[in-house]
């Protein structure tokens, strides 16, 4: 995994700054979006590492920077697969809420990884009409080992891109949970799955 040199780092920063200005009125390209979010989060974590042990501040960071860029309803639907149709609207709402809580909790712990490492976002080649893309990134760790992390994003009706899957080293979050959800529903029921998620989130 090639590391960014300072020139490309500077260039990327300039590009991000340009995007940050236009983000409010125009559509942000998916790779630029990922880059912006990653840079924002890394900047905050580097400036104030204590935030990682401050639950309230960490929650605020996640709620302001990360959650708006994920489509949790879509993630839940994909993780449920063919079982989604078997769930009532109330069950679907409960599943979405609990799944979001579980993911946020789990991965807020993983944020510590962003502090000492650099994130390299691979440029995305996409057609203008595409509405479903995968942005490839690599977390370059201090020991030289890179962790490939891909984000699948979908374009919403309002033109904004939201992530619906994270693929770490080839392991898709959605696929992983689909297998787990399937097992619980196969052996028990949708309600049992909701209960398990709830007790996990307590």
């Amino acid at each position, binding site marked *: *995994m*090639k*590391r960014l040199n300072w020139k490309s780092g500077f260039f990327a920063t300039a590009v991000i700054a340009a995007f940050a200005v236009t983000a409010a009125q125009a559509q942000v390209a998916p790779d630029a979006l990922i880059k912006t979010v990653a840079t924002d989060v890394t900047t905050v974590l580097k400036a104030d590492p204590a935030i990682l042990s401050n639950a309230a501040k960490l929650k605020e960071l996640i709620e302001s920077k990360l959650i708006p860029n994920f489509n949790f309803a879509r993630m839940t639907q994909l993780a449920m697969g063919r079982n989604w149709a078997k769930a009532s609207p109330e069950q679907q709402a409960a599943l979405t809420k609990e799944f979001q809580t*579980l993911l946020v*909790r*789990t991965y807020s*712990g*993983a944020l510590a990884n962003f502090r000492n490492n650099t994130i390299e976002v691979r440029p995305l080649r996409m057609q203008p009409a595409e509405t479903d893309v*995968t942005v490839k990134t690599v977390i370059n760790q201090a*020991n*030289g*080992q890179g962790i*490939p992390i*891909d984000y699948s994003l979908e374009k919403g009706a309002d033109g904004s891109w939201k992530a619906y899957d994270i*693929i770490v*080293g*080839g*392991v*898709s979050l959605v*696929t*992983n949970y689909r*297998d*787990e*959800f*399937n*097992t*619980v529903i*196969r*052996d028990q029921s949708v309600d049992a*799955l909701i209960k*398990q*998620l709830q007790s*996990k989130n307590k």
Partner: protein
Amino acid sequence: MKFAVVILTGVMTLSGCASFRTAAPGDPIEPINRGVYSFNSTFDHYLLKPIAKGYDAVVPGLVKTGVSNVFQNMSDAQSLVSDALQLKGAKFGDDLGRVMLNTTFGIGGIFDLATQLGVERGNEDIGQTLGYWGIGAGPYLVIPFLGPSSLRDAVGRFGDSKLNPLSYVSSVPVRNSLTGLSVVDARVGLFPAEDLLNQASLDKYTFLRSAYLQRRQSLVLDGKRPKDE
């Protein structure tokens, strides 16, 4: 390693005759796998994990890194055959360069100079080589003491164990001690993943199975996803 062969034979026999009511695709012997998984978890909980925790707490960081690097260097050497069998010239060159540099200037692999110089690890094995030549993963297997695998990868592991420089250490006590140390070293490396697993999963068995099968598939395809290209 003999028991691996026994298990394989047993598994093939079982999957041929037994059918389970609610088998997940790719895991026809789930009830047996779950039994082995639970055995492995108990073994880990009472023996391996406490040893790894002790090692982690007592041994200084630099020494731990050195130990990890030495085993990693052996595994790079082990990768060479798989690189060659998959005709991956660039990876073969990288791994060969890594091993030569780290073994000499890195003093037997204690220092991973190659990574610092930006030479990537090929990270290949026989299981991936079989996959590269079109052999599917086959049924998912949980191997006693070793953990998640597949029929293909279990065969691969057997091959890899023969290729690892450790297997050429002639003194049996030394070889066994080194093998033990490599297991503890690998277990320490799993601590961060273990926390994530505990936090993220509803059913650890299913979570691990899914992650293992996806990860191996990804390694066989060298990081490309099936829908790419």
